[in-house]
């Protein structure tokens, strides 16, 4: 049983790390701000989501597991809002990014 859980964690966290890596490569190599934002938000969504998913079985009780999920949700909100704000600036043509 514990081997199955360990394997599950290994696979999901590795996949999460892969998304962070892919997001970073995209951030560095994509041609303009909007595509770079796309790469960045994918890393946040899926990368962190998979890492949290992989860590859930090891959480110290139900409340710790809920805390992990809450952290993921809060990062979603912050990341999505920041992406929207930056995209608005780009659309107005005064890009800081």
């Amino acid at each position, binding site marked *: 049983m514990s081997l199955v859980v360990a394997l599950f964690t290994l696979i999901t966290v590795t996949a999460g790390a892969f998304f962070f890596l892919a997001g970073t490569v995209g951030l560095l190599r994509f041609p303009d701000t909007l595509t770079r934002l796309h790469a960045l938000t994918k890393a946040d969504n899926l990368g962190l989501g998979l890492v949290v998913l992989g860590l859930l079985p090891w959480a110290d009780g139900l409340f710790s597991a809920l805390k992990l999920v809450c952290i993921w949700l*809060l990062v979603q*909100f*912050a990341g*999505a*809002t920041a992406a*929207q*704000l930056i995209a*608005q600036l780009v659309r107005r043509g005064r890009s*800081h990014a």
Partner: protein
Amino acid sequence: MTAISAPDIGLVLLVLGVAAWTTAVRDAFAAVIGFVAYGLLLALLWVRLGAIDVALTEAAIGSGLTGMLLLRAGARAKATQPTAAPPGKLLRLAAAVLCATVAAGLASLVLYPPGPAPSLAPAAAASLPATGLGNPVTAVLLAFRAFDTFLEKVVLLLALIGVWSLAADGHWGGAPTLPWPADRGGALTFLAKILPPVGIVVGLYVFWTGADHPGGAFQGGAILSAMWLLAMLGGVASVPPVEDAALRLALVAGAALFLATGLAGFWVADAFLAYPEGYAKALIIGIEAAMTVSVAATLALLVAGPPARGVRR
């Protein structure tokens, strides 16, 4: 934890790299972003060293709040024409030499500490039960070194008075204007409606748990001030005029209650800032509650800046 692991070494190198980049980069906006990233990485290092209280403060105040203050200062400096010539080579060299001397002095102290390093930690730990607190950091801040913490509160107020004194005569008493026009119905307004209920609970929790676990008035207050700023930026809450009586009461509540408790100590416990036996924890929590309100209000208004609108009468 004596062995240094590979991730820790990577983290240290990353902090040093970001610090060097922040110093070297020429653009003020980029330098501030570097400073914020540096602060967050430094907070991770404090976590690795087991200093959770320091990490929380570094992330909330050192990185988040100071970063926002610097962003505003940078934007303001960009908008105005430079009046003085940029510092010459000699001045910059002198600054670099002084900074390097301070860094070298600190490094030599860390690398070659004097004999048995002087420490008050055992004495503080031995006296912890007398305060009724579980978190030694809070005990140091509000019992053993209460005078320092009280003065810190006063310094925060003085800083805000300094910011307010930049107001034009016609604007005095009015409300500060925030850097971004509130985009009603936009993404920021959405976040300003969703996040504060969660953030207020987290901020109050961080304050309350500070008695026994890492946390406290400064960290909790910083989170609350961020929520208030978010609500004001999103246009959900209005920016209060600086002559507002309730606002001024909130600003001085922490320092005033601290001072009143300290003076009362002369009669009930024989010394300034001494707590009567058995009531220490209740008094400390009371002072911390008032300080949380004051810290939240002061930090938010520091970011909001000097009043920039006249009073509507």
